[in-house]
C-alpha cells in the first residue's frame, strides 16, 4: 500500500514488532478525526509496548498527506486505493455497500499473526482501551524478556 506518492509499505516490512492496524472509513469525517487524533496522543503508550501503528482507508495519498498534516498525525496513513479496498477486504473490514473501510482494529504480534480484532458499531469511535489491553496481553513473559532481565540483574550486581 502506498504511504506517500512514491513510497510503499508492505505488512511484511512491519514484522518484528507488534503492529496496530486501524481501518477507518475516510479522511476528514469528524468521528475519524477524533479517533486518529486520539491515537496520535496515545502513541507514547503504544510505543511502550514497542508497537507500530498504521491507519488505513481508501482515500488517496494526497488526501492522506493533507489530513495527516492538518491533524498532526505521527503515524503512517496507508492508502488502500488501488485496487480499491483490497487490503480492507482481505481483513474482512470492507463495507461493499458504501465502498469504504469499516472502523476495524487489529493487533498483530511480531510474527504478523492477528492476536486481537474489533469491529466498532457504525458511528461509534472505538477509543484506544482495547488496543492497550491487547498489547498488554501480547507482552506477557517471553524467554527473551526473561533473559534480558537476568542480564540486567547480573549487570547491576556485578
Amino acid at each position, binding site marked *: 500500500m502506498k504511504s506517500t506518492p512514491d513510497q510503499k509499505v508492505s*505488512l511484511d516490512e512491519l*514484522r518484528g514488532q507488534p503492529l496496530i492496524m486501524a481501518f477507518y472509513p475516510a479522511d476528514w469525517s469528524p*468521528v475519524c478525526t*477524533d*479517533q486518529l*487524533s*486520539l491515537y*496520535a*496522543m*496515545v502513541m507514547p*503508550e503504544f510505543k511502550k509496548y514497542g508497537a507500530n501503528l498504521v491507519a488505513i482507508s481508501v482515500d488517496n495519498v494526497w488526501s492522506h498527506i493533507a489530513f495527516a498534516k492538518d*491533524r*498532526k498525525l505521527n503515524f503512517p496513513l496507508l492508502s488502500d486505493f488501488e485496487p480499491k479496498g483490497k487490503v480492507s477486504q*482481505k*481483513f*474482512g473490514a470492507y463495507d461493499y455497500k458504501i465502498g469504504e473501510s469499516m472502523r*476495524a482494529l*487489529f493487533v*498483530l504480534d511480531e*510474527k*504478523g*499473526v*492477528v*492476536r*486481537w*480484532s*474489533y*469491529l*466498532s*458499531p*457504525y458511528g*461509534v*469511535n*472505538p*477509543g*484506544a*482501551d*482495547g488496543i*492497550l489491553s491487547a498489547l498488554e496481553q501480547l507482552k506477557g513473559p517471553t524467554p527473551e524478556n526473561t533473559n534480558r532481565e537476568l542480564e540486567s540483574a547480573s549487570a547491576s550486581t556485578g
Partner: protein
Amino acid sequence: MLARPPVRSKSKSGKTLLEPASRKSRRTYQPPRLVVSVTPGRDHIAGPVNAPLTLVEYGDFQCPYCGDAYPEVKQVQTVLDSKLRFVYRHFPMTNVHEYAMLAAEISEAAAAQGRFWEMHDFLFEHQDTIGDPGQAFAFADSLGLDIQRMQLEVAQHVYQDRIREDFLGGVRSGVNGTPTFYVNGVRHDGEPVAESLIEALTSTH
C-alpha cells in the same frame, strides 16, 4: 447494535488469515466502563460526594464540543440537584488544541487554592480568550487567590503529571474524544445533551 466479536488467526505460516467469527463468541455491544473509580479527595466533585447518581466528564477546556456541553451539564445539575455528583477529569487533546494543557494547569492551580469549579466555569465561559492566560489569572485575582503562586505552579508544570494521569485513566476507560461522559460508570454513547444525559442517568440507576 452488534459488535463483531474478536477474530483470531492461528496460521502457522504467520500470515494474517481471518476466520469467520464463530456464533459462540458473538455478543451484544457493551459500551466501555470507567476503570478509574471516583475518588473523593483527588477528583473534582460537584454535588454530594455520596449522591446516588454519578456523571463523569473527560473534557478539554479548549474543545468547542466541551464548550457546547458545558450548559447542558449545568442543566443536568439543576434538574437532578442533590441526587447527582458531577466529576470533571482532564483530557486535553494537546495535538489539536495548543492551549488545552495550559488551561488544565491553570484550573489545577486554582483547585490547589480551593477554587476549581469557579475556574472550570470561567474557562468554559471564556473559551474565546483561552489563548490569553492573563484573563484567567485576572479572574483568579478577583476571587482573591494568590496568583503569584498559581503562575509559578503553572510555569513549573506542577500539575502536568496529575493531568496526564487523568488522560491515561480516560484512555483505559475508552474515552474516544472530547467530551466523553460516563453515566453511573458506563460510557455514554448518546448525544452529550441534557435530555439524553438525564434519561441515561435516571434509567441506568
